[in-house]
């Protein structure tokens, strides 16, 4: 509960921060807090991924981008009232929707009844792998993971296509300084 409140505080700080460098660092802090929350929620595999991906690789890539662009945010001329109103109303509706969900941590919720007991009971017998997450990831839901791997492959190719091509001449300031 304390960790969740901290998460909310860091998010507000991200909204208020105008220096993009600060935003990136706060996003890294946010990821570490999120990883701690996930450990508390027993999702150790996910927490490990979030810590290494969210706080590691994505921070590095964001910083590499900041190296290429201007690092302060412009004071926006647009009005903030309408977006604030829209997100507040949507949030209120969603909170109202969650009130009918079973309370946090109950063992007899519907989500625990469907296919999961079979995974937990039969994983050792069928695959010799005690970590149910790995077994479901690579075996029972192999198609899913194949698709995800293909998405990563495609995104990697896309980034290389976007960034490896020749630069357009003349329009950027950086080019004028160092031809």
């Amino acid at each position, binding site marked *: 509960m304390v960790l969740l409140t901290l998460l909310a505080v860091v998010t507000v700080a991200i909204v208020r921060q105008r220096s993009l460098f600060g935003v990136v660092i706060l996003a890294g802090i946010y990821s570490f807090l999120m990883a701690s929350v996930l450990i508390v929620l027993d999702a150790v595999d996910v927490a490990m991924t979030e810590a290494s991906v969210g706080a590691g*690789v994505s921070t590095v890539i964001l910083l*590499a981008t900041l190296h290429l662009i201007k690092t302060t945010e412009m004071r926006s001329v647009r009005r903030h009232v309408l977006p604030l109103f829209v997100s507040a109303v949507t949030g209120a509706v969603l909170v109202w929707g969650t009130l009918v969900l079973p309370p946090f941590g109950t063992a007899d919720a519907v989500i625990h009844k469907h296919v999961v007991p079979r995974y937990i009971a039969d994983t050792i017998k069928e695959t*010799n792998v005690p*970590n149910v*997450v790995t077994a479901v990831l690579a075996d029972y839901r*192999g198609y899913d993971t*194949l698709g995800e791997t293909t998405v990563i492959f495609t995104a990697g190719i896309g980034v290389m296509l976007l960034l490896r091509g020749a630069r357009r001449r003349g329009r950027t300031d950086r080019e004028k300084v160092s031809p």
Partner: protein
Amino acid sequence: MSLDLILRVGTKLILPFILLFALYVQFHGDFGPGGGFQAGVITAGMVILLAITFGLKAAQRVAPRSLVERMIPLGALIFAGTGVVGLVMGKNYLDYSVFSRDPAHGHELGIFLVEAGVLITVAGTMTALFYAFVERGR
């Protein structure tokens, strides 16, 4: 130059252990938390740390760009190929029980191959992303 001595020595000291930890996460993923995705990201993290401390040239001596870019499709192909083996042996796509006479052992082997494919793709992609962004900046 002399100020970052501690950084350089410390990085050199820690690099093999990062790689070792990545391999541990990969091969111990059946028994504890971990697997191909995490191990791939940690491996890429090792290359990124090397590039940050010693410069891009040193990192690309360890992991040349051509190698990294070949790893991306290679991993996806290993994954898809593992599925095709099941198809060729007369079972369903991605059915690992064909790898061994004992179905459970076959599944274990199949999971191992699939995780290896994931590791190769993820490590390759993350390193290639980093190279692409950094090379744009020079």
